[in-house]
Structure formats: structure tokens, C-alpha cells
């Protein structure tokens, strides 16, 4: 995937799963998203990088409506999100199809690992308990923590908690996964296990939008790297282009800072 896919809608397979058209967002006076255009193809892994405060989280949080935007269009899997929180029921439809993993895991502390994973499939998809449990056990095995199913989140390490969070999101069988710095809150020795689970997911063909500072992981897994600065997409392309031959001076100075150590 060397070029940004700008395929027209209605061409079947190539229809983007996410499309942002001239999206603008303000926090008061702060213009955090400025005419953002972005398309993500099915199966594509997009890694978003940029300095702190550049608007990376805001960008992916707009995709599942955790943030409102003020102008432009966002279409996710054929469902259009409207500006200023006017999406109504569509919002829930989109969230059902889009999973998210947060920096702070956000597991539900009052529920066991198993209940964390089965809650949404049972309440949103109305799956019977047996089916939800079955899926949960398979997913927990897939992320390597099936033996922790009966525990509570506080009894797990950070790396294990984040893998539960991944299993919880995958239990809804999402079409798209969003990751907002999934390893930034982890002790260094636990980062690997979470990245491994994500790498496996990417290899299985999941469409992913990932905000991360793990440049090695981005280089290896991303189909496309997007560099964001001051609420704009400054540069994008395959990882070897963006990382090895950044065209924009902002990208160069950002990379020289983060790749130094």
C-alpha cells in the first residue's frame, strides 16, 4: 500500500472503512483538527504519530464519536457521523462496529475478567451467555491469559490488563480497532506482550488505527504512517518513506527527537 487510497465509493472492496472529509474541531479557541482528510481501507494498519498535544487522540476519538467535531463529514463503515453530536442512534451503531483500546486500559474494576469481556456482547449484541462465554474464553486464550479469567482487573499486571482490554474490544467482533497509546502506561518489560498481541491482530487482517510512540513497532506493522502536527496531517506514507526520508521539516525534527533514544 504505497499510496494513500483515494478510491471512490461504490467500488466494492476498495471502499474505505473510515473516511474523514474536511473535518474540523475546536476546543474553545484551540483549533485541534484543521481540515483533516483521511481514508482508511479495509485491512489497513494506520499508525498516527506526532508530538504531545498535536491532536492524535482527538483524531481517533472522533472516529467513534467520543469527541464531537464541528465541521466536515466522518463516515465509518457506511454510517455517517454528524457534527456537533447530532448523530443520534448512528453513534451507537458505529461504536458497536468499532473497538477501542485506551492508554489507561479502563477495565471495569467491579467485574471479573470474564465479565469484562462478556458484558457488551450480552447487553449490546444480545448474545446468549453460553456464546459470550465461549467467545471470551477463546479470545482470552488468543491473548494468552485464559488462566486469569476468574480474576479481577486489580489482580493483574498492566500488560495482562491491557490484553484483557484488547480481548474485551474484540469480543464485539469489530470491523475496525482504535488504539490510543496502548503501551504508554506500561512498565517497559510489559510493552512487548501487548505489541505482540496487536501484531498478531494486524496479521489476521484487522483494520487498525494506532496512536503510538513505539516507532519500531510502527515501522514493522504499519501500512501507512501519518504524522500529525498542530491539528493537521503534515505528512503520510509507508513507514520506510516517512521514517527514512521524511519530506517535511516538522517530521524531520519530530523524528530526530523521538528516534534519538
Amino acid at each position, binding site marked *: 500500500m504505497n499510496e494513500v487510497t483515494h478510491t471512490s465509493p461504490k467500488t466494492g472492496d476498495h471502499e474505505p472503512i473510515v473516511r474523514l472529509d474536511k473535518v474540523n474541531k475546536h476546543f474553545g479557541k484551540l483549533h485541534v483538527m484543521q481540515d483533516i482528510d483521511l481514508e482508511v481501507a479495509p485491512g489497513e494498519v494506520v499508525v498516527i504519530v506526532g508530538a504531545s498535544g498535536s491532536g492524535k487522540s482527538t483524531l481517533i476519538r472522533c472516529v467513534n464519536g*467520543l469527541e464531537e467535531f464541528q465541521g466536515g463529514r466522518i463516515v465509518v463503515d457506511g454510517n455517517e457521523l454528524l457534527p456537533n453530536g447530532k448523530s443520534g442512534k448512528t453513534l*451507537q451503531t458505529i461504536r458497536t462496529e468499532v*473497538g477501542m483500546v*485506551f492508554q489507561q486500559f479502563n477495565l471495569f474494576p467491579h467485574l471479573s475478567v470474564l465479565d469484562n469481556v462478556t458484558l457488551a456482547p450480552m447487553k449490546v449484541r444480545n448474545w446468549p451467555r453460553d456464546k459470550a462465554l465461549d467467545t471470551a474464553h477463546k479470545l482470552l486464550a488468543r491473548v494468552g491469559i485464559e488462566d486469569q479469567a476468574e480474576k*479481577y482487573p486489580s489482580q493483574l499486571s498492566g500488560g495482562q490488563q491491557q490484553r484483557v482490554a484488547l480481548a*474485551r474490544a474484540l469480543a*464485539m467482533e469489530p470491523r475496525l480497532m482504535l488504539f490510543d497509546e496502548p503501551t504508554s502506561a506500561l512498565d517497559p518489560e510489559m510493552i512487548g506482550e501487548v505489541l505482540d498481541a496487536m501484531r498478531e491482530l494486524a496479521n489476521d487482517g484487522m483494520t487498525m488505527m494506532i496512536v503510538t510512540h513505539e516507532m519500531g513497532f510502527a515501522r514493522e506493522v504499519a501500512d501507512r504512517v501519518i504524522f500529525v502536527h498542530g491539528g493537521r496531517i503534515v505528512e503520510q506514507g509507508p513507514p520506510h518513506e516517512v521514517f527514512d526520508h521524511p519530506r517535511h521539516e516538522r517530521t524531520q525534527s519530530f523524528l530526530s527527537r523521538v528516534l534519538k533514544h
Partner: protein
Amino acid sequence: MDVTFQFDWQAAIDSIPYLLEGIPWTLLISFGGLAIGFIIGIVFGLLRISPIAILRWPAIAYIEVFRGTPVLVQVLFIFYGLPQIIGGPINALTAGIAAIALNAGAYISEIVRGGVQSIEKGQREAGLSLGLSRTQAFRYIIWPQAFRRMIPALGNQGIVSIKDTSLFSVIGVGELVRQGQIYIATTFTALEVYFMVAMMYLAITLSLSFALRQIERRGLVGQ
């Protein structure tokens, strides 16, 4: 040391059967009022944090009025004042339960507000991102956690309200203090009887504390 008084244990024991008759009334007013107050507290606590101003301000007004005035004045107002408005008498028991419900309801609203607001924003976001509706996110994720955090404060409020019912002797409900006063009027054993009355309040509040500690302990699993 000069012993200037004599504590008459027999008089204290003799008063027990009479005082016990007040306990059902004390419990009925306390727990009846608290049960209604809890429902009021949930409703107004949630209205209090509503993003919609026309829902929020009546809740603020209610909370401020009933927290900012004495419960004794509230019960006098309900028992003696309200009949002039509605044109008929109000039964003392009803007035007592209503006063506890409205007064505790105001405090419990604030407890509910604090409990719900103490749950990290990420919990709600995680729920919504899984496709849960706002109502489902509240019911399955926010409320269970908030409720656990509210238990100690609710226990406190329970104890305060139980003790507040002692003021309602003024409207003539035959609760503990009232029973004690009537008994003392014929026996003149104020020291012994008020001591026993105090012990009975203590027995009720300690039982409540104990019960809540059990609930809390069980509720702490998984935190």
C-alpha cells in the same frame, strides 16, 4: 468524693418494657424515611449533575433548602404548617417520615452526586466505545462502582437520620424519646430513663454500622 446522686438500676430496668414500645416507631420513621430518602437522593442526585439546566436547578434548590434548614423546623412546618395549606390534618407519623425522607433525601442527593462524579471518565468511555447505550453504561458500569463508594457516607446519613427522629417527640409520635418523657413524668427517674434511651439509640446505630460493614466488606471484592 461526695456521692451526690444514686443511679437506680432497678428504675432503669423497670423502664425498659415501656421504652421498647417506642422502638418500632423510631425504626419505622427512620427506615421508612431513609428508604424514601434514598429514592429521592438517587433521582435528585442525578438531576443535580444533568447537563440540562432546567433539570439541574430545581434539584439544586431542593438540596440547598433541605440541607440549609433544621430538620426540627421541617417537621414542625409539615405537621403544623402544611395542614393550613392543604386544609386537613397530617398524621404525626406521616409528618415524621416525610421530614426524614426530605431531609435525608437532600443529603443523599449530594452523596449520589459525589459517588457518580468520582468514577473516572474513562469508565464511561470504555462502556460507550463497546456500544453500550448511555443508560446501559450507567447501569452496568458507573452505578455499581459509585454505589460501593457511597456506602460509608450512606451509613453516616442513616445514623444521623435515626438520631434526628428523637426530635419528633415534639409532634407527639410515640418514639423512644417521647416514651421516655411520658414515663419520667410519672416516675421522676430522668437520669435512669434517659440513660436507657441513649443505650437504645446506641444499640440501633451500632447494629446499622455493623450491617453496613458486612455489606462493604462483601462489596469490596474485586476492587
